[in-house]
């Protein structure tokens, strides 16, 4: 066999303290579809970013067609024939298809005269080659998502790409569009292109891929021909880790029903027919893949997107939060996922951040009382062990874990009945993670109803009293806490536990 198109050896990469890749081996042959599979956060995105030159690895080697590449910049990666087709195509919506393709292919001299006819012809030829019935004259903004992906593929082909990376290309496609895309992938393979295919859909991997590599916690745990492996074995590879982290034990005896959802839906964000109950003192985990509708559900509960089906009951009273302010008044708190953008205001001092949601309560008459604010901030800094210079330090000066605690403090200050935590430990170092777990447990023990959204499987399993699994905008299963990880993954992937127990 000739040298592989792409060969990665012992690739490692850390961001701050977090080790995203710990040693990945991967190889891609010409004329092969090689699937990459792994949970959220297993390192797939980091791997792609290294191959496309967006990130530099800390150690390890990259060889392309047998040649070791020292520095891989985005331009160099492009030059070497590596193209990436993202789930959300990165095209210019106001330009035509031909102009978009030309931008990628033609030399970028500002004063060069444009040959419009050649430009159109090249675009037409590339589109025909992949069987896309799109006019090169169409403005990209008028194309559907799959059509835009086809334009991206045409760009890749035109650039002479030998390695095409596809990141969950079928995530937003209809069945029919998926089959069109599969044909294009097979054509690419037949013409000798190597395709790295990232997908969560096992059936897709089995019908399309030649080989599959599973990533777990930043390591490649195995590469197999798809003909040599079955779904159960794949799930086993994705999950099969030991629990490296000790979770505080559940001490709560769940009380009365705090939150009850019946057939909750929101057409705008794709949430439909969600029903479950959360008791006081209970931690209800929401598991599922990215895009399964967990954050979207939280946003409905917090009044950010409108409820348009079913009903929400809090402490037996029917509510329909119309805005965050309304949700707060009902006793709902939401610690959002993207804390740097939504959780804390980085420019403002810690104390201001902590009192932001409770102005009406601690500052009667709108006159700020700095003494009361400082006392409250100091209490929370002590209770949550926030490491900081003091309540006046700006939130930007804190580490990720401590920013998360500030965000949490803001919501605890509202004395909520229901606390929704969205990825509370994402990007947080191990020590702070344990502290946050401890805090969440204590809050539940004090009688708070908690909804915990997390893509970290051991966290969901270790922390939750019960686990709701979401898929495609709806709740597909409710499992007990400390469930078998295989069962959770299988439900999240839509395998209904079939073969997963083996």
């Amino acid at each position, binding site marked *: 066999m000739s040298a592989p198109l792409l060969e990665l050896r012992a690739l490692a990469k850390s961001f701050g303290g977090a080790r995203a890749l710990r040693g990945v081996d991967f190889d891609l042959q010409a004329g092969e579809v090689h699937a990459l599979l792994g949970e959220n956060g297993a390192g797939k995105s980091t791997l792609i970013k290294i191959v496309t030159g967006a990130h530099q690895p800390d150690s390890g080697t990259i060889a392309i067609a047998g040649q070791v590449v020292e520095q891989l910049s985005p331009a160099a990666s492009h030059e070497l024939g590596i193209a990436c087709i993202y789930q959300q195509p990165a095209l210019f919506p106001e330009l035509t298809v031909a102009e978009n393709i030309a931008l990628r292919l033609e030399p970028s001299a500002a004063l060069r005269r444009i040959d419009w006819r050649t430009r159109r012809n090249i675009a037409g030829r590339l589109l025909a080659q992949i069987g896309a019935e799109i006019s090169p004259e169409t403005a990209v903004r008028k194309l559907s998502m799959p059509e835009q992906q086809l334009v991206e593929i045409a760009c890749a082909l035109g650039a002479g790409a030998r390695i095409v990376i596809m990141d969950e290309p079928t995530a937003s496609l209809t069945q029919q569009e998926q089959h069109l895309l599969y044909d294009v992938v097979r054509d690419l393979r037949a013409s000798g292109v190597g395709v790295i295919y990232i997908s969560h859909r096992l059936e897709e991997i089995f019908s399309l891929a030649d080989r599959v590599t599973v990533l777990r916690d930043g390591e490649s745990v195995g590469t197999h021909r798809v003909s040599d492996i079955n779904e159960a074995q794949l799930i086993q590879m994705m999950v099969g880790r030991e629990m490296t982290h000790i979770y505080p034990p559940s001490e709560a005896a769940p009380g009365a029903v705090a939150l009850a959802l019946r057939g909750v839906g929101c057409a705008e964000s794709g949430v439909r027919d969600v029903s479950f109950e959360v008791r006081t003192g209970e931690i209800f985990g929401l598991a599922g893949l990215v895009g399964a509708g967990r954050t979207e559900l939280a946003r409905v509960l*917090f009044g*950010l997107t409108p409820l348009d089906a079913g009903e929400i009951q809090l402490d037996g009273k029917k509510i329909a939060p119309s*805005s*965050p*302010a309304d*949700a*707060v008044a009902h006793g709902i708190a*939401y610690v*959002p996922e993207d804390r740097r*953008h*939504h*959780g*804390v*205001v*980085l*420019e*403002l001092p810690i104390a*201001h951040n902590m009192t*932001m*949601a409770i*102005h009406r309560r601690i*500052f009667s008459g*709108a*006159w*700020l009382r700095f003494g009361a604010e400082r006392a409250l901030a100091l209490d929370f800094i002590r209770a949550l062990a926030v490491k900081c210079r003091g309540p006046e330090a700006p939130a*930007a000066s804190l580490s990720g874990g401590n920013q998360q605690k500030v965000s949490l403090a*803001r919501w605890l200050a509202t004395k909520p009945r229901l606390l929704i935590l969205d990825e509370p430990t994402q990007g947080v170092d191990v020590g702070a993670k344990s502290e946050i777990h401890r805090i969440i447990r204590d809050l539940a023990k004090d009688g708070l109803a908690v909804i915990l959204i997390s893509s970290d499987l051991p966290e969901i399993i270790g922390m939750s009293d019960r686990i709701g699994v979401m898929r495609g905008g709806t709740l597909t299963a409710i499992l007990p806490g400390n469930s078998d990880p295989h069962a959770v993954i299988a439900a999240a992937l839509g395998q209904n536990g079939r073969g997963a127990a083996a």
Partner: protein
Amino acid sequence: MRHYFRELSVAAVLLVLLAALAIFAPAFYQPQPLLSLATREAPTLIVACGMALVIIARQIDISVGSQFSVCSVSAALLAAMHWPLALVLPASVAIGAVLGAINGALIAGLGLPSIVVTLATMVTLRQGLNMLRQGEWVSLPDNVQWFGLSQTVGQWLLVAAALALLVALGLAMRHLAGGRFVYAVGSDAEAARLAGIRPRLGTFFIFVFMGALTGLAAMMNIIQSPQVQPLSGVGLELKVIAAVVVGGVAISGGRGNLWGAFAGLLLLACIAPALTHLRIEAYWEKAIQGAIILLAVVADGLRSRKGDA
């Protein structure tokens, strides 16, 4: 102290300028010309206070000059119709507030970018006024100028009123919840919304307030002269935006305060008389003001780049 470094450095530059004048051109410190200078700048200070709020909330209002003209002419016409000044003043403020509410409704209600909306209202108001008035000046009855008081008393009254408003607003920005919401919305509107603050409502009221202050400033302007010319507000927007930016209010929102804006305004306002007294040609005024603005922007740019790293 570190937190107010930017404001303190503007104040330091101002003090250096004033000290230099004290040594090389003590004639600058004659009371009557200084009082006249302060009186001329009093309306500008009021508008600059409003602009500081607008910019801290990560918006901009370039229509203030035209609003100022419309309010000036309207108030002058009402005064010429022998309305009592006690009614002309609230009328001018109300007209300004309505003009601000139009901006606010378009910006906060429809989510349009403030620079485009206020550019449109700036041109519309100015040309509308030109068309209606054909550039005609309005002569005022005698009792209007300096409220019918002596000039010196009237001048002191205006300066004191402007300073009192500055202090009141400056304290409100720090001690009222509303002031903190302005900072929160300007820093991160989405985070503020998730914290239960209503950024759109707040933005609307900031523009209404900006308009009301402009109406007040217009009133303070017309009582200074026996006649009101319709182009009195042209260029005002640039003057106040410059003062606010020089004073350390970040054009990207969320940072700065009224004290800084005040120092910035004083610095820019002192340049012209300082040049006269230092016997430097007056042509240099705009160039020096431009250089100061550039320096302030570069300083802020370097600061925020350091903050990112």
